[in-house]
């Protein structure tokens, strides 16, 4: 590759890595909205909780991989409990009450993290096999291995979701539930259980993205709402409730943000906001969203 193109290639890799981080973060939020029809404002808090639990489990066990596997399951189960105990009684009430509940939950979880871990900035070391930089022969430069792993994880996850949605009975039920929950119930499928499962899965995904993000960035108080905002932007741009939207929304936001930061570092937030405004004006339901009227 000609040397003058190397910075561009590096920025493309940066954009892809950040996009995949965003996709993994936003997927759970989008999934829950698609079926349960409310925005889980505690999504960022579950992400933060995942990051901190990942830190704890990785420190205790000495294995990042164990944390990456165990934390999403644990947090997902906690999400399952929360859905059954707190959210289910609210399904007959307006959606806004469910949203407010998750909003309150976000504060409670934020304080729990503060009580358990304090206000210090924490960081998680990548596993030894992903530490340092990998030499990319085509580019002639090194690139952090962990970022390559984040890209791989995002792409694999996207592939799995697609298979699950397009090729399995469960995926078909979820898709049907997104379209018309009453009809699905009329066909004899237990929609309540489906809701519980999807909520738990979405929450587990938030925790998974938290563990993934921890070595990429760092852990600190306030990361929950920062993540929530980014996830909301991604799903609003991509179209609420579709995983395809989350994927392409993340790609768009990640790329715009990376090149925006490189070109005008001090106005970079503006780039994302302008992108969101442009998408909402031309396609109010988002890129892949259907008008749900």
């Amino acid at each position, binding site marked *: 590759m000609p040397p003058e193109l190397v*910075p561009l290639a*590096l*920025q493309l890799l*940066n954009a892809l*890595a*950040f996009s995949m981080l965003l996709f993994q973060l936003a997927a759970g939020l989008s999934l829950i909205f698609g079926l349960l029809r409310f*925005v889980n*404002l505690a999504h960022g808090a579950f992400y933060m909780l995942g990051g901190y639990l990942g830190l704890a489990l990785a420190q205790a066990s000495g294995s990042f991989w164990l944390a990456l596997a165990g934390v999403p399951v644990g947090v997902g189960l906690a999400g399952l409990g929360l859905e059954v105990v707190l959210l289910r009684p609210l399904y007959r009430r*307006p*959606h*806004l009450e469910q*949203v*407010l509940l998750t*909003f309150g939950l*976000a*504060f409670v979880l934020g304080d729990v993290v*503060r009580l358990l871990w*304090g*206000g*210090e*900035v*924490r*960081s998680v070391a990548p596993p030894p096999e992903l530490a*340092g*930089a990998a030499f990319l022969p085509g580019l002639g430069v*090194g*690139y*952090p291995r*962990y*970022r390559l792993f984040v890209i791989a994880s995002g792409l694999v996850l996207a592939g799995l979701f697609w298979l699950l949605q397009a090729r399995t009975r469960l995926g078909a039920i979820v898709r049907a539930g997104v379209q018309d929950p009453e009809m699905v119930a009329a066909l004899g499928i237990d929609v309540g259980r489906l809701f519980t499962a999807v909520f738990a899965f979405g929450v587990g995904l938030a925790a998974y993205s938290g563990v993934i993000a921890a070595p*990429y*960035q*760092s*852990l*600190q*108080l*306030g*990361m929950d*709402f*920062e993540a*929530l*905002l980014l996830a*909301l*932007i991604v799903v*609003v741009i991509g179209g609420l409730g579709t995983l395809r939207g989350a994927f392409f929304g993340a790609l768009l936001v990640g790329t715009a*943000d*990376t*090149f925006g*930061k*490189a070109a005008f*570092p*001090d*106005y*970079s*937030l503006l780039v994302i906001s302008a992108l969101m405004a442009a998408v909402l004006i031309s396609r*109010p*339901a988002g890129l892949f969203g259907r*008008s*749900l*009227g």
Partner: protein
Amino acid sequence: MPVNVDPALPSRSVASLSRRGFLRALAATGAWAVGGSLLAACQPAAPPPAAPAAPTTAAAAQPTSAPATSAPAAQATAAPAPQPTRAPTTVATVAPAAAKPASTGPLKLGVLLPFSQVYAQLGADILDGMNLYFEGIGNKAGGRDVQIVKEDEGVDPAPAVQKVRKLIEQDQVELFTGIVSTPIAYGARDLLHNAKVISVISNAGGNDLTRGRKSPYIFRVSFSAWQVAYPLGEWEAKNLTKKVVITAADYGFGRESAAAFKQSYEQNGGTVLKEIYPKFPNNDYAPNLPEIQAANPEATYNFYSGSDAVNFVKQYNDFGLKKTIKLTGSGFLLEEDVLPAQGEAALGGISSLHWAKTLDNPENTQFVASWRAKYKREPSVFAMQGFDAARVIVEALNKVSGNTADKDALVKAMEGVKFSSPRGAFEFDPATHNVINPIYLREVRLVDGKPGNVVTATLGTIKDPGA
């Protein structure tokens, strides 16, 4: 800091929300949440019955944070009410508070420090530093027991300034200390000045607080941005390289640090090849790193703090810049609060600050040992600033026998406070009320197997020019 500019929330009623409008409202709710004005975010969601029950903080924050809202009727009637009543109270309470003989009974010391959100650790360190000093001298100042009335600073100026008002008017504190964030210090400045509450700022380092906006009643025991950054520019031009790139978080303190460094660096023959100001806060500096490399400098001067500092230093290392481009910066980039999280990525980093944990003087040895014994963790520069803030208050009150009613005498006493601090000699510049700081050159090396700042030189005793 994302200040809460009201993103013009739709004020439509809940019942008539269309699905799409609902989504937009939610997105806006999320945006608000991030801005930090959390309770206010319930505004569009809460139907009228919820309004009276809204906690006072929300109500108090509303008029100042969102004066330009397209206010719904309910708000329009509610908002003006507190405003006029509040303005007169400022005037009314000042006189009695000043006239009250306040030299007996416990000394009410108002403290505003962040105990939540991103600066929570700084607030905890400063308060613990204060308590360490107060306990060491039997919790007495001028013969009176010290009674702390504390409020959470958070990160948002509007609610934080309301809390300063509460401390002055409702709690009638005799002295005030704290404030981590510069915008909050600027916001509180007039309140403190007009009420003549003698104040000891224990962090916020914006230059103007002891320059254009200085007050006879406000003292600063921490630093000014200029004070920390200026000496390193000269040292770096003379001893390290004449070619640097400057990067700093895009807010007042970051820009002021960068400007002071640049000023002395250029005065000494250095060339700044490029300046980059990434937005604040920021998790990912990867997009900026190729820009640094492209300018081909021999070193970078950087200012970030907290999690930004962790991310920047780690990513600077991950992308291999540290091997060829020397990492230098403000002391906050590599201070004790972020060093454990940065780990070995910080090794070799050079910075300037008015303190270092390994600083070799008897007061510091004593301070670090007693801090570790009491809190079972490592002290930071913020802890030291809290410790010194408490000492300044005690020394000044001892001189006036605990009488806070005679403001002029207390100001004089404050101006004359001198002692040996863990940072070295402590004294105020009577012209600005900013502390005169020794500034140290520090390098991150392995100390007992862990990265720590080692003092390699003293860059002088630095007085802020005050203009």
